């Protein structure tokens, strides 16, 4: 295969490598000889372990990406950001309430937001980060929770923020408050948990557990399947 592939030059932490042009940054670094310890996680865009900053030769622009989700480009200068010394406040979810000032009380630096939108531009998930920071500032916890939902906590927004806000940790607080106190628990879940606790299903399950394989299989093959509606 390699004979047909076009190569590009990348610089990993300043070191120059020739790599096939169709690899992701992560696979290109491995191709070049790197074995990840930090900086590789799910390898599928679900965990944020491989937050990466890069600049392409000739451009002044510093860009953010997940190494597992970005294909290499000619002249890329690459640095991974595998850890972020970010502020994460601790709180008791049973005691905090989603009041209009809750977010700013817990993360006062939210009010330093300059509305420069650098966080949004840095986000590899294309989340409207500045918009949820602003929603948090206004005390609109519902909006902050919804806008931030796809966040992988990769940390690139916080690294780039000139006001030193840590948007993703604030967003986690917003989502937990929204889920627990505003969206609220589902009644049928609570009811069913109580019914199990009361032993309502003990007998039915015990019956199945004591059944021989053959009648059990018959029961299974002929069970009522109702997955519509």
């Amino acid at each position, binding site marked *: 295969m390699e004979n047909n592939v076009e190569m590009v030059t990348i610089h990993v932490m300043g070191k120059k490598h020739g790599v096939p042009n169709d690899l*992701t940054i992560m*696979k290109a670094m*491995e191709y070049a*000889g790197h*074995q*990840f*310890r*930090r900086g*590789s*996680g*799910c*390898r*599928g*865009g*679900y*965990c944020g*372990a491989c937050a990466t900053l890069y600049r392409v030769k000739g451009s002044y622009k510093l860009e953010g990406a997940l190494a597992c*989700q*970005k*294909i290499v480009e000619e002249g890329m200068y690459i640095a991974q950001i595998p850890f972020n010394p970010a502020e994460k406040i*601790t*709180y*008791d*979810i049973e005691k905090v309430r989603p009041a209009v000032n809750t977010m700013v009380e817990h993360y006062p630096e939210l009010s330093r937001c300059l509305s420069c939108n650098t966080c949004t531009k840095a986000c590899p998930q*294309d989340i409207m980060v500045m918009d949820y920071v602003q929603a948090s500032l206004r005390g609109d916890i519902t909006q902050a929770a919804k806008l931030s*939902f*796809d966040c*992988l906590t990769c940390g690139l927004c916080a690294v780039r923020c000139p006001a030193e806000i840590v948007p993703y940790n604030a967003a*986690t607080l917003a*989502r*937990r408050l*929204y*889920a*627990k106190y505003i*969206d*609220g*628990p*589902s*009644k*049928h*879940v609570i*009811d*069913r*948990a109580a019914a*199990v606790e009361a032993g309502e*299903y003990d007998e*039915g*399950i015990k019956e*199945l*557990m004591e059944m021989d*394989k053959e009648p*059990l*299989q018959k*029961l*299974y*093959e002929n*069970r*009522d399947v*109702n*997955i519509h509606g």
Partner: protein
Amino acid sequence: MADNESGYPAYMAESLKKVVETRAERVGKSFTPMNAQQKTDILKNFHPDWKMDEKRELRVGHNKGAQMPHEVVDIIEAHSIIKAENIDLSNIDYDVDVLIIGAGGAGLSAAILAMDSGIEPDKILIVQKLRLGDANSKMSQGGIQAADHPNDSPTIHYLDVIGGGHYSNKPELVEVMVKDGPEVIKWHEELGVLYDKMEDGSMQLAPGGGTSRRRMHSCKDYTGMEITRVLMDEVINREISYVELTSAVEFIKDDKGQVAGAVLYDMDHDDYKIARAKATILATGGFGRLHIQKFETTNHYGSTGDGIIMAYRAGADLLHLDSTQFHPTGSAYPEQIVGQLCTEKLRARGAQPLNIDGELFVYPLETRDVEASALIRECYGKDKGITTPVGMKGVWLDTPLIDIINGEGTIEREFAAMHRNYTKFGIDIRKEPMLVFPTLHYQNGGVEINVRCETNIPGLYAAGEIVGGIHGKNRLMGNSQLDLYVFGKRAGIAAAERAKTIELGELSLKHLDDYEELLKKEGIETDRKSPILLPEYRGKKTLDHQLKLL
């Protein structure tokens, strides 16, 4: 991307055209599910588990004679990466009540419940090979099962699980899983996990392969990520101690034969540390990165089966490791994301698997083993697959149907992750199908436990994917998310109870010497070492020229 621009190579256009042409008439059409005999036949003929030359008999230890994939036997019939004589057990770095190895859904849940059961947060230690929360748990897309809808019940859930697992499950483990299910969802909601809801505040539920009810709770297609994110936040809020980039490599036992902690390996500094613990919970996850039969995998970078060999050397019983789950739909194109998960929920919401002629060839929601076998048969038995530029075969998964059936915007709303990831590589799944092929997804077997998560060795508990027996020889979608929290919580409670009463004896690594003797006795000569900790993806030239100078 322009409307008329395809994300696929030009030579696939003819097949894609057939997909488009047949789409309208396929809406609302299904395919007859297979009967018991047809299922047995297709599994025997096409499921990778039935390729007996891909397995061999284990020659060492108390499960000697068990059939397992070569890749698993390779890590079991191997020397430890440490030698007992090189480890100083008198210098204890961490002295705790409860040691938790692995920080995915099971480990995090265990930590929270150990604390709820009266263990001080600084007497709990979570060690994690990579970062907190870096685990397969986080990658779960489609959802988590729990029988909480009025038209469903734990009894119905039980039957689905045990039938789906071909009656090989341990019934008592299935019982506690289905009964604890609603309580787990309730617990998540109390912690602030944001589940998808209907207008009336009830759960939005979807079916999965082999489920007889809509039972799948979801957080868009970031279900595992959302739950893990909340549990991590809670562990940090409670100031439970954890240490990242630190992998357990072997258990430590005491002179009474109890597990009494673990030897840890600092992945940053290449030195070892000693953790002594009154109770130890193994929650290391699965083995996808062993690439069984060279399959691509959906699994996390750290899924190298470390827990299997650590537990076996310490004397734990293993179960069902002959059986591996291949998820029916992994990415087959583009090359950059080959093997990655395309959630079963896509089929639950209407996407259909199609062959090169645009024909639906299987009921889309068979159990995973049967569905995967049908895809393999279509490609290699009937030669009706689509060949990719690198020679891999796959079938179409017709995703545009999802928006046609459920309304425009459904894909963007419910499959935000899928849509985003494919868009990055040039394919709009709202307009074009995905190209898919089965991918290595889950370790069905593992360490045997009881309902208290106790293994056969005092002091050693296990929870999560490292456990065998819950799902039998085939797991249903959404039940591994559920088992993480059911058994993670139970392990935390049971380990905390033990830690309050137990006295440890003198620490020992004698079991490692004993294992060496066993290898010798069986005549196993090898230079393999395990656990392997990280998969090897470096270029050939690097490996050929590698020097270990320091």
